[in-house]
């Protein structure tokens, strides 16, 4: 009985850094911690340090809108994210931690003929890969989401939707904590408040990292630093095709539950879901200019509230409870950049733009496999940094340009 009042730590504070690790992971977010977890679990590589300049999950892992889905447009992308959704489905059992994963279904609204064509294209690609995805029309949308305004008396009437039943929302902090606990139990060291200030190389390969808490020798450095990826890659003199933008979201005060699907409109640049607490969680598009200043903007609140009210006029009197901002690392083709770079031993997971959180488990498993076997798994081969030198881009613009 006493045991339930004991304060339990999710992971152990580790004191001083060791002089040497096999693998150093920069960034203790969902990607960094999941890579560490799978390195220990799947490959027995436990001499790993995960460093972060702030607390764990302080970046994009703690600021996303928690949407998990696989209805992408390119076969490479859809296959990759589908593998991620499957891992997410078993993740709570795997980590022995309740992640509150709710696969409530995901609707991408089409408001134009062009929108319907894109939705059909995505549904066809998805179905070929065995992903549950189909185009539905207002009569069926009304059954799935009776509270949504489907009238013609709006700026952009709803004409159809891409329905993706496995899409869902999850408790994002729990994913970070679960992976941190799993990695720690596997023997990995987690060092928050340890900023990497340099990456040492000789003969074109990584030898170690310099940090604000001392130097470390290592063979492999993995950068999982999202919006800060360019700055970390600069330390290794690796140019990246990344620009950093801010993405914002807000929640309303809690209201009675009346929305149990995720609604996305690329025309109106919003995505809406209702959390388990009853808050309406609304996100929008990135700001078009590059910036590292993570401060929210008023126009964002104004236009996303306006568009949300077209779909859900009953939220007219709901107050905005809080809003927040995160840094996104946009790649030119809206697909991630994953795996090896020209510096031997320096691996990256970046270019995640606005869709990194939903890929955390598959990034962890594939990067761990890459470190352990020195072979790029076929699933992530299309996302190599090399594609920008060979001009083999994977354009995911149609399915990822609106952030969700």
């Amino acid at each position: 009985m006493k045991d339930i009042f004991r304060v339990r730590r999710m992971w152990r504070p580790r004191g001083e850094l060791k002089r040497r690790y096999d693998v150093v992971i920069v960034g203790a977010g969902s990607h960094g911690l999941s890579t560490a977890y799978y390195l220990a679990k799947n490959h027995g590589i436990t001499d790993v340090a995960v460093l972060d300049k702030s607390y764990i999950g302080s970046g994009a892992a703690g600021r996303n809108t928690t949407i998990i889905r696989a209805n992408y447009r390119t076969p490479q992308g859809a296959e990759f994210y589908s593998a991620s959704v499957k891992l997410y489905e078993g993740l709570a059992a795997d980590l022995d931690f309740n992640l509150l994963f709710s696969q409530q279904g995901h609707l991408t609204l089409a408001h134009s003929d062009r929108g319907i064509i894109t939705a059909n294209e995505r549904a066809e690609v998805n179905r070929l890969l065995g992903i549950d995805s189909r185009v539905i029309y207002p009569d069926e949308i009304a059954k799935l989401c009776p509270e949504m305004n489907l009238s013609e008396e709006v700026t952009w009437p709803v004409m159809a939707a891409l329905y993706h039943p496995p899409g869902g929302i999850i408790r994002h902090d729990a994913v970070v904590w679960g992976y941190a606990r799993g990695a720690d139990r596997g023997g990995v060291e987690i060092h928050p408040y340890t900023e990497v200030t340099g990456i040492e190389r000789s003969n074109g390969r990584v030898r170690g990292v310099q940090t604000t808490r001392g130097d470390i020798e290592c063979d492999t450095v993995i950068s999982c630093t999202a919006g800060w990826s360019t700055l970390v890659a600069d330390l290794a003199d690796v140019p990246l095709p990344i620009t950093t933008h801010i993405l914002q979201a807000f929640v309303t005060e809690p209201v009675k539950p009346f929305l149990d699907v995720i609604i996305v409109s690329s025309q109106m640049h919003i995505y809406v879901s209702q959390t388990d607490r009853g808050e309406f969680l609304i996100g929008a598009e990135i700001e078009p200019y590059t910036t590292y200043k993570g401060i929210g903007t008023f126009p964002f609140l104004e236009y996303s509230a306006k568009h949300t009210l077209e779909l859900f006029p009953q939220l007219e009197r709901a107050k905005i409870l809080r809003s927040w901002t995160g840094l996104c690392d946009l790649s030119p083709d809206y697909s991630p950049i994953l795996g090896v770079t020209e510096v031997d031993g320096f691996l990256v997971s970046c270019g995640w733009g606005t869709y990194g959180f939903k890929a955390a488990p598959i990034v962890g498993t594939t990067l761990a496999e890459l470190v352990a076997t020195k072979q790029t798994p076929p699933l992530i081969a299309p996302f190599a940094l090399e594609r920008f030198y060979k001009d083999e881009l994977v354009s995911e613009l149609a399915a990822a340009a609106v952030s969700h």
Partner: protein
Amino acid sequence: MSFLLPCPNCGPRDVNEFSYAGEVTKRPNFRENVAGIQREWWYHRLGCEVWFQAERDTRTNEVIRVEIPSASPREGIAAHGVTETPDMPAV
């Protein structure tokens, strides 16, 4: 309002009046993406429609200076005897 951007013609305006057209760079995909002062293209979409360059600190969004480049790309190409109209940067 996110920040004010001084248009060389119209003076300080809300940044949402402008289109951002990326940092001034010679490399197509690979960007410097600096956390610091960046030289970049802007277009005054909802105003005088001028293309200009600004120097902005990406850590604070403070605009240090703006200027209209002396020769437009069009004039530069005409001076070299090429007559085709170049594509405008995407807005």
